[in-house]
C-alpha cells in the first residue's frame, strides 16, 4: 500500500487555495495593497518615532539641554552659582542673549542674529556641537555660527560677519560652525511660523563680547538650569523665581515650552498619533474587505465545502482553508509592508534629522518591528478571516449538495413611498432594489466612500485652512506692514522721532511686555500688548464674530488664554509682572477674542502703562510704510531691537506650504487607494454573487455594457450618499484635529472650505470611477452562459 511521496509537499487543499488566490488576484492584491500601506506606515512611522525620540534624547543629554530657561533684566554673574544651593537644582549657569541685526551686502535685507555667550566648557548647559572649525577663545571678536544659518547664507569658517550693535558696526570672525539642541528648529519667535534660515541665525560669542554688546557688564540676562532627577518642578521654579525676583524675571520657560523643543515634541507626538492611527485604519479596512470576500466565497463554495466535509475533511481544516487566504494576505502584506517600512524608516529619520538639524545620526533598525508588524497584520487578518469564513462551520455536507433555497424577496423602504417609487424608471427601480438587497455590502461601500471622502476633505482642507489662518491673522486681525520693537521703552511723544529716519504712511505706538496671568492655580505666560483704543492695525472680534473695541479699563484676552486659565468675560485675572518690585495687579477680562496665531492679551496703551509699567511709555511701533530704505535706516538706529516685516513672514509661510503640498499629495493618494480597493472588491464580490442574475439579463438581451452601467449606477447611488455623509464625518475629523493640532502658538479652525469640498469630491469620484473601470474588465471576461449552466453559481 502506498502512500505519501514526500513529507514536505504542499497539500492539495493548499494548492487549491493558491489557485483560488491566483483566480482572484485583483481582489487579493487590492487587500494586499491596503495591508502593505498600513504596515509600511506602521513600521516606518514607529521606527522613525523611536529613532527620533532616541536621537533627540541623546542629543539633549550629551549637550546638557537645560530644564529651565529664565529671561532676566540683569542678574549679577555670581547669582547663578548661588542658585545651585536650591534643592533640586543640579546645574545653573548664566549667559547673555541679545538679538542684533546682521549687516549684509543687500542693505534692504532684514537679517537678525541672536548673539548668545558661550564658555565652550564641556559642562556648559546648552552646549554646542562643533561641526566644523574650532571653538572661540575667551575674548575678542570670534564667533561660532549655527549650521542652518551658515549654510543658508553660504558663510564658512574664516569668513567675517558684520553686526550692528547700539548704533555701531562690529565685525566677528567665524571660527566654527556649530549645532545646538536649543535651535534644532531654528525659529526667531512664536510669530515666525516656520524657520527662515537666511533671515535668522544664532551666533555664539565670548562672554566679554556679549556683555559689551548688551551693555551688561558683570551680569547675565538669562539663567539656564538643570534639575536633579527627582526634582519637583513647580516648587523649584517658585524658589528660583523668588531668588531672582530682585533682578527682574521677564519670563520663565520650562523645557517643554522652549520653542524648538515644543515644536519637536509636538512633531513627535503627531508622529506617534499617526503611527498608531493610520495603520489601524488601513488594517480595519483590509479586515472588513477580507470578511466580506470570505463570507461571499464561503456562500459561493457551499458545495465545495460540503464535498470536502464528505470526503472526510474536518470543520477546522475547511475553515482554515479559507482563513489561510486571509493569513496569506496578512502575512505577505505584513512582511512586504514591514520591509518597505524599514527601508522608508531610515530615509524618513534622516529627513527628519536633516529638517530639524540634529548632528547625531542614530538610525537603528529595530528588527523586532518586523515581527510585530507581521504578527499584527497576520492576527488582524486571521481574525477577520475567521469572522468572514465562520459560515463554513454551519454547512452540513448533506445539505450542501442541494441548491440553496432562494432568499425571500422583500419590499424595500423606497417602495413604501408610492409617490416617489411610481416616478422611477424600471432600471432605476432595479438599481434601488439592488442597493437595498445586500444591505451589509452597500453599507460597507457607503462607509468606505464616506471614509475616503472625509479623509480627502480633511487633507484638501489643509492648504485652505492654513491660508485662511494666515489671511485672517495678517489681513483681518492685524494690518500693519512692519512691527518695530525698541530696545528700551520711550515716551509716547518720542515715537514721532522715527519719522525723521523713515518715511511712514501711518504708525501707532505699542507697548508689549511679557506677564504671567494667573487664575487660581492656573498660570499662563503671555505678552500683553497695549494699543490705541482706536487702533487701525487691529480688528478684534469676539468668539461670536462680533467686532469689539479695546476697553478703557480691563483687557481683551485671546480664546486660548481664556481656555488655559478657565476665565470668561467679567472675571478678574491676576497679572504678575516680571519686572522687579512690581506688585501683582488684578485686571478684569472685558472680552474674549478670536486670534488664530499667538497667545496675547490686549489693553489700552495708556491704561497698560499706568497700571503695569510707567505712564505714557511705548516700546515699539506698528507702521505702514512704502519706504524702500526702511530696514537699512532702522538698523542703524541705536534703540531699535528688531524690525519684523509681515511680508517676510508670509514669504516663509509660502515656502512651507510648498513642502506641505507633498504630504497632502501622498495623503490624497493613500485615501484614494482605500476608496479604490473598497469599491473594486465590493463590486467584484457583487459580480460573483450575481452571475446568475446577470446571465439571465444577458439572455433577455442586455449587453455587457448595459450590465456594467447598472452596477455603475448602483455604486454611484451609494457614492452620492457617501459624499453627503462624508461632509459631517470630515467635519468631525476636522473638529477633532482642530483640538488636537491647536497649540499655544496657533488655533486652527479646520472647517472645510467650499474649494476643499469640491476638490475632495472630484478626487473621490475619480478613484471610485477608476475602481469601476477596473471591474469592467472582469465583466467582459465573465462567461454568462457558462454561469447559467454552473450549479454552484
Amino acid at each position, binding site marked *: *500500500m*502506498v*502512500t*505519501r511521496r514526500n513529507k514536505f509537499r504542499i*497539500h*492539495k*487543499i493548499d*494548492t*487549491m487555495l493558491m*489557485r*483560488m488566490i491566483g*483566480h482572484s488576484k485583483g481582489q487579493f492584491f487590492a487587500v494586499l495593497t491596503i495591508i502593505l500601506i498600513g504596515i509600511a506606515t506602521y513600521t516606518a512611522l514607529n521606527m522613525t518615532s523611536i529613532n527620533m525620540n532616541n536621537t533627540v534624547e541623546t542629543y539633549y543629554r550629551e549637550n546638557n539641554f537645560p530644564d529651565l530657561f529664565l529671561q532676566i533684566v540683569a542678574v549679577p554673574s555670581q547669582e547663578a552659582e548661588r542658585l545651585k544651593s536650591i534643592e533640586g537644582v543640579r546645574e545653573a549657569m548664566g549667559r547673555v542673549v541679545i538679538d542684533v541685526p546682521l549687516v549684509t551686502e543687500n542693505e534692504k535685507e532684514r537679517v537678525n542674529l541672536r548673539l548668545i555667550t558661550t564658555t565652550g566648557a564641556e559642562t556648559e548647559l546648552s552646549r554646542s556641537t562643533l561641526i566644523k572649525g574650532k571653538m572661540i577663545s575667551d575674548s575678542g571678536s570670534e564667533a561660532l555660527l549655527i549650521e542652518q544659518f551658515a549654510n543658508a547664507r553660504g558663510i564658512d569658517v574664516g569668513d567675517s560677519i558684520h553686526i550692528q550693535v547700539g548704533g555701531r558696526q562690529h565685525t566677528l570672525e567665524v571660527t566654527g560652525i556649530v549645532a545646538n539642541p536649543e535651535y534644532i528648529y531654528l525659529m526667531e519667535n512664536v510669530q515666525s511660523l516656520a524657520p527662515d534660515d537666511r533671515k535668522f541665525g544664532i551666533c555664539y560669542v565670548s562672554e566679554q563680547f556679549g556683555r559689551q554688546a548688551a551693555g551688561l557688564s558683570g551680569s547675565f540676562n538669562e539663567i539656564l538650569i538643570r534639575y536633579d532627577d527627582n526634582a519637583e518642578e513647580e516648587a523649584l521654579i517658585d524658589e528660583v523665581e523668588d531668588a531672582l525676583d530682585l533682578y527682574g524675571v521677564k519670563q520663565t520657560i520650562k523645557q517643554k515650552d522652549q520653542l524648538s523643543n515644543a515644536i519637536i515634541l509636538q512633531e513627535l507626538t503627531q508622529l506617534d498619533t499617526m503611527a498608531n492611527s493610520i495603520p489601524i485604519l488601513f488594517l480595519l479596512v483590509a479586515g472588513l474587505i477580507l470578511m466580506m470576500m470570505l463570507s461571499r466565497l464561503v456562500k459561493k463554495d457551499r*458545495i*465545495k465545502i*460540503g*464535498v470536502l*466535509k*464528505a*470526503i*472526510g*475533511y*474536518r*470543520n477546522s*481544516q475547511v475553515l482554515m482553508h479559507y482563513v489561510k487566504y486571509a493569513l496569506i494576505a496578512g502575512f505577505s502584506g505584513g512582511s512586504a509592508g514591514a520591509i518597505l517600512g524599514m527601508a522608508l524608516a531610515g530615509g524618513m529619520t534622516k529627513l527628519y534629522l536633516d529638517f530639524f538639524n540634529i548632528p547625531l545620526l542614530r538610525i537603528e533598525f529595530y528588527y523586532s518591528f518586523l515581527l510585530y508588524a507581521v504578527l499584527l497584520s497576520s492576527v488582524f487578518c486571521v481574525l477577520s478571516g475567521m469572522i468572514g469564513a465562520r459560515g463554513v462551520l454551519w454547512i*452540513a*455536507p*448533506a445539505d450542501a*449538495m442541494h441548491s440553496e433555497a432562494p432568499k425571500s424577496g422583500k419590499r424595500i423602504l423606497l417602495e413604501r413611498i408610492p409617490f416617489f417609487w411610481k416616478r422611477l424608471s424600471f432600471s432605476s427601480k432595479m438599481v434601488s432594489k439592488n442597493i437595498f438587497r445586500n444591505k451589509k455590502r452597500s453599507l460597507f461601500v457607503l462607509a468606505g466612500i464616506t471614509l475616503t471622502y472625509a479623509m480627502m476633505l480633511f487633507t484638501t482642507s489643509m492648504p485652505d485652512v492654513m491660508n485662511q489662518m494666515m489671511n485672517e491673522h495678517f489681513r483681518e486681525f492685524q494690518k500693519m506692514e512692519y512691527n518695530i520693537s525698541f530696545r528700551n521703552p520711550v515716551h509716547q511723544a518720542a515715537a514721532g522721532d522715527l519719522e525723521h529716519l523713515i518715511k511712514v504712511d501711518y504708525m501707532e505706538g505699542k507697548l508689549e511686555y511679557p506677564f504671567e496671568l494667573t487664575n487660581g492655580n492656573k498660570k499662563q505666560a503671555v505678552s500683553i500688548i497695549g494699543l490705541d483704543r482706536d487702533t487701525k492695525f487691529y480688528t478684534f472680534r469676539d468668539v461670536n464674530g462680533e467686532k469689539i473695541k479695546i476697553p478703557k479699563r480691563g483687557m481683551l484676552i485671546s480664546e486660548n488664554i481664556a481656555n488655559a486659565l478657565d476665565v470668561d468675560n467679567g472675571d478678574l485675572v491676576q497679572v504678575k509682572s516680571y519686572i522687579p518690585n512690581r506688585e501683582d495687579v488684578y485686571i478684569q477680562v472685558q472680552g474674549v477674542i478670536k486670534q488664530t496665531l499667538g497667545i496675547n492679551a490686549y489693553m489700552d496703551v495708556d491704561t497698560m502703562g499706568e497700571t503695569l509699567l510707567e505712564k505714557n511709555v511705548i516700546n515699539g511701533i506698528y507702521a505702514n510704510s512704502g519706504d524702500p530704505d526702511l530696514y537699512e535706516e532702522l538698523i542703524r538706529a541705536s534703540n531699535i531691537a528688531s524690525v519684523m516685516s509681515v511680508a517676510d513672514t508670509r514669504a516663509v509661510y509660502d515656502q512651507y506650504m510648498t513642502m506641505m503640498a507633498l504630504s497632502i499629495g501622498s495623503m490624497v493618494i493613500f485615501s484614494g487607494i482605500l476608496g479604490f480597493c473598497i469599491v473594486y472588491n465590493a463590486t467584484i464580490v457583487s459580480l460573483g454573487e450575481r452571475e446568475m442574475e446577470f446571465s439571465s439579463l444577458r439572455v433577455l438581451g442586455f449587453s455587457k455594457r448595459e450590465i456594467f452601467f447598472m452596477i455603475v449606477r448602483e455604486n454611484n447611488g451609494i457614492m452620492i450618499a457617501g459624499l453627503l455623509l462624508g461632509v459631517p464625518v470630515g467635519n468631525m475629523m476636522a473638529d477633532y484635529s482642530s483640538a488636537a493640532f491647536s497649540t499655544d502658538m496657533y488655533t486652527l479652525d479646520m472647517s472645510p472650505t467650499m474649494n476643499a469640498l469640491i476638490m475632495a469630491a472630484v478626487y473621490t469620484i475619480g478613484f471610485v470611477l477608476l475602481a469601476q473601470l477596473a471591474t469592467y474588465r472582469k465583466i467582459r471576461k465573465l462567461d454568462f452562459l457558462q454561469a447559467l449552466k454552473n*450549479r454552484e453559481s
Partner: protein
Amino acid sequence: MAILRAEHLSKSYQMGEIEVKALRDTSFEIQEGEFVVILGPSGSGKSTLLNIIGGMDLPTAGKVFLHEEEITVYHERELTEYRRNKVGFIFQFYNIMANLTAEENVELATEISQNPLPIDEILEAVGLSERRDHFPAQMSGGEQQRVSIARAVAKNPEILLCDEPTGALDFQTGITILSLLRKVNRDMGKTVIVITHNADIAYMADRVIKMRSGRIIDDHINENPVAVEDIKW
C-alpha cells in the same frame, strides 16, 4: 457477513410548518462485497438514507452499524473520521474541485486517509492516466465522473456510496461508469451502493432495495445479475 446494518431508521425534518418524514422505520442489511442498487422515485427517501449511511446526516430514530459498530452514536469528529476512512462518495454532478487537476483531485482525498491506494494504479484503473494533468473544465462529464470514482476509491474505503452516478451522463457514458463501478466491486472487493431512480440499473445489482415514501417496499437478492453491457435504458 453483513458489512452494514440499518435498524428501524426514521428521519423527519421540519419544512416551514410541515413535518416531512423522509424515512419511516427502515431496516435492511448489506453483505460485504455486494453491489447494491437502492431504487426509488424522487422523494422516496433514498438520498436521505445514503446520507445517513454515509455519516453525513443523523437519523431521528434507529441505528446504523458498520461491522457491528454503531455509527449513529458517533459525534461530529468520529463521523468525519468515518467518512474519511470507511466510505467513499460519488455524486451525480461529480463535485470535483474545479481548480485541481484530475490527479490532484484524487490526492486531495488520499492525503487525509489512513490507508490510501496508489494513485497511479487508480488513475490507470479508471482510464485517466493520460488525462491526469487536465483540469475538470478540460474534461468531459464521463471523465469527470471517473475522477470522482478515482477520488472515492483511492481512499481505500470499505463502501462506495454512489448518488445517481449516471444521472448527468448520456447512456453510453453511463454504461462505462457503471462498468467501472462493477470493476471496482469485483476486482477490488469493495461494497458498492448505488442509489438511482433508473430501474434498468437494478438488473446489474446483487441486491435491489426498492423504496417509496420513505419506506422499503422490496429488498431482494438478484440471483442473476446481468452484465453491464447488456443494460439498456
